């Protein structure tokens, strides 16, 4: 689709439809862990509504951003704790 937005996930480019939630974009691109916990465990979203903070990733350089509460924008850079 021509009106897709381009984002990068850990440096790799991806094309997603506008209004895609960042967490969804990550899952669709095959990300299986969003962050590592304080003891190093892999984690994925739990609540999907912004309260649990398990879906934290770095968005445009801002660490600890809740990916389930942010919509993809053109040029957005997303980095996970892989």
């Amino acid at each position: 689709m021509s009106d897709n937005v381009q984002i990068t996930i850990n440096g790799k480019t991806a094309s997603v439809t506008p209004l895609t939630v960042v967490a969804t974009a990550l899952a669709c691109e095959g990300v299986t862990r969003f962050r590592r916990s304080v003891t190093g465990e892999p984690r994925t979203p739990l609540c999907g509504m912004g309260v649990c903070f398990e879906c934290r990733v770095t968005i445009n350089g801002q660490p600890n951003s809740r990916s389930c509460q942010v919509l993809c924008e053109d040029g957005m850079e997303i980095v996970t704790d892989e």
Partner: protein
Amino acid sequence: MNEKLLEFDIAIVGAGPASIAAACAASENGKTVVMLETSPWFGGQLWRSEFPRAKTRQAIKWFTHLSETSAKAFLNTTVIDAPAENTLLAETSDGNLRVKYDKLILATGTREIFLPFPGWTLPNVYGAGAMQALAKADWPVEGKRIAVAGSGPLLFAVAANLRIRGATIVLTAEQTDLMSFLKFGMKLPLLAPSKILQAIKYQSRLIGVTYKTSCWPVEAYGSEQLESVMFTNGKRNWKVDCDYLACAFGLTANLELPRLLGCKINHDAVFVDDFQQTSLKGVYCAGELTGIGGIDSALTEGQIAGLAAAGKMKQAKKLRRTRRRYNKFEKAMAKGFALRRELLKLADDETIICRCEDVTAGQLREFDDWKSAKLQTRCGMGPCQGRICGCAVKEMFGWENLSIRPPVYPAKMKNLE
């Protein structure tokens, strides 16, 4: 820091169904209204996937109605404090917003209840409503084997929706017993007839899917991510292979803001009078904050709060009968899906309770109260501020966190560990 000051007759926290109904009622009656919503969408938990294009009849009706009023809304705006009388402080991506108001309506909704069991922190274990919300936002569920578990009528909706999107539901496990479940079902015709049609619709989509009562998960397995779940009916355990587990044990109100303001709270719900006014004059509450009752109850309470805050008591009074019926429905639901004691003993010593700080049940068992546990282990002191582990420790140990300090959400600019 950049700070803007705004003044409105009525400030509403949240932009879910209850807030939308309140905003419509208040602004139609000549009041200036502002809605402050932390997420990037309108519609709250139920309708957020319908923003900006509503698809269901009810959502279309209310979104259209709202767009025809003069109510203003700020999305991506999190209310974090009530720093002075009749004043809210909210955080946005480009600075703070200070909102002065005459009347305040709180409609911050609910979140899911999670009870820890071994393996619940594995990737691909989700909340039940969470899985549904993620799927509605196009999370990849097609072709996945999903077990749905926990408690409440929401499980039907979740399983039906996931199946429509191409998932295979390997099991739906409801912890309550068949008798309680049937008693609840028998009250539906009187208290919430609209739910019967909904139930029939879901049932028709779930033909061939096993739905078990008195059944709950005891352990989730997998090395790097979920591979299978052990279920029990209290007598026998069996293992089910699956890609995702969608599991939550009901809903609990987001009480942080009403608590910070000092509203009286009764049995996990904000106490309100017939006009949705809390124990504080000029502060109203609507929706799931006053009792978990679902969409219709949220809309009715929102309307009452909006009308009452705008001084239209006569009109508000007309809706009281409907509201009382929904209150009975709320009570029937709480009774029908009360949590069984066995669920509180699922965590073993190694099971993580606080996911932000990775504090285990074994560590917590050494303490007598949450305050000392918190100080020694940091349980509940991570970015979720105890929103997830708080429910678990309350159910498991009877510890309750009643002292709320601002900010009620961690401020974005602060560096979170």
